[in-house]
């Protein structure tokens, strides 16, 4: 039962932050992932408006260089992972196949000593938020266990990115996310769609605002979502936060 996996991953990320005496950020998901999966580096990249990626959290100079290369070239496994919403494996960057797929990125990455990359998307429904790019100095693909762990690290990074975007500090206790993720509930996504139209913002923004509202009021996200869907709650733009215009309790 993969609650164990989610709990194990969360604990490793929280411990990483604790050891550094830092508040939890997506960077810790990257660092813990590198440790756990024995890869040489990780880059958390966010989807940019220009069809490329923005490196945001990097585990070292090597990862930074490769992430920037991908951004500059507008090609790479992370970009493909974001576009497809599914993991992308580049098992041998020196191969003809890789050069066919990423004509400039692959040979250049291989030249710099990175022989394989696997990239896991940070995606939620139709939202393509970013990717977690994992770099290795040897060719090869991850096995099933490693890939499943990588997906959970990416999910964890996603949660931390959403908190970051919403200005929400992430507590180090395992969130409900480690059990049944509220982020996978239908009503939360319906509410995000509704708020996006009401406020004239992208659905990702709407989701971030819903979470910020829930954090601000102390109400569970699922209840806030239900109130929005039932039209009892309408989020309004505010100068430094979001105010309820009207809330009716039944």
């Amino acid at each position, binding site marked *: *039962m*993969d*609650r164990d*996996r*989610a709990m194990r991953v969360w604990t490793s990320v929280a411990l990483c932050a604790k050891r550094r005496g830092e508040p939890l950020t997506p960077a810790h998901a990257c660092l813990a992932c590198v440790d756990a999966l024995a890869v040489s580096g990780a880059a958390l990249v966010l989807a940019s408006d220009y069809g490329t990626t923005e490196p945001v959290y990097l585990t070292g100079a090597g990862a930074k260089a490769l992430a920037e290369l991908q951004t500059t070239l507008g090609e790479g496994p992370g970009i493909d992972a974001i576009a497809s*919403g*599914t*993991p992308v494996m580049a098992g041998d960057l020196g191969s003809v196949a890789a050069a066919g797929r990423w004509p400039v990125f692959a040979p250049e990455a291989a030249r710099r000593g990175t022989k394989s990359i696997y990239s896991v998307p940070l*995606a*939620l*429904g*139709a*939202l393509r938020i970013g990717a977690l790019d994992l770099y290795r100095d040897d060719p090869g693909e991850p096995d*099933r266990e490693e*890939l*499943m762990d990588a*997906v*959970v690290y990416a*999910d964890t990074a996603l949660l931390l990115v959403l908190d970051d975007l919403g200005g929400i500090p992430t507590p180090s206790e395992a969130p409900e996310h480690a059990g*049944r*993720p509220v982020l*996978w*509930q*239908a*009503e939360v*996504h*319906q*509410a*995000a*769609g*509704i*708020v*996006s*139209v*009401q406020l004239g913002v992208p*659905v990702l923004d709407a989701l971030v605002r819903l979470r910020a509202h829930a954090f601000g009021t102390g109400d569970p996200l*699922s209840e806030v979502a239900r109130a929005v*869907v039932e039209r009892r709650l309408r989020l309004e733009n505010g100068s430094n936060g979001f105010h309820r215009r009207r809330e009716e309790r039944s």
Partner: protein
Amino acid sequence: MTDLRPLAELTHTLVGEFDLLEFFQRLVAHAHESVGVAAAGLLLAGNGGTLTHVAASDEQARLLEVYQLQADEGPCLDCWRTGEPVRAPDLSLAADRWPRFAEEAARRGFAAAHALPVRLGGQLIGGLNLFSAKPDELAEDRFTLAQALADVAAIGLLQQRALRRRELIDEQLRSTINARLAVEQAKGVLAAAREIGVEDAAVLLRGYAARHDLQLGDLAARIVRRDPSLGDLAAQSSDVD
């Protein structure tokens, strides 16, 4: 003798680039009719272990399935934990077994529940759940049909996997769940844009996808990204072609 023609019709849709979400939707509708229960629902496990609701034949069944997941209690959960079918022919006798679920089921108008495991390549990946309005023993022939439909759910996934490049089951389940969430996002967008309820938005979405031969998940993604070519769908009180 059970009429298997509707089942054959269902499996005949498994050709070409078929829409998996729409297939699951039709599967549960078919389960509801052919097994003769009030409603049916399908749960699949994303990322190895988190059960997520994927399709239901009506809103009451959907709410009951979601309730089970949130309360972490009920026949579907037991089926998931044991990998064995779970029979609850009379929920009024199930208050000890699942106190919260039994109460919620009664509130939603269900008096019996049966849960069948869905397996793919030997791996347990979800459950098909049947709900009846009256106490229901689910005799052997209906039970067998229900298990066959649970297997058909798995066949749908296998068929999709055969048509795409190599993917792990886990990735496929995750994609399916993301497609489902995209549909929920699109329902919200349409509901607000057209000032209708989310379930009416769902009907609109499915109808549009069917008429234009689009996959639900793809259409949903385009709506979420505000694809301008879908302007007529998102516009308020326009006649949708």
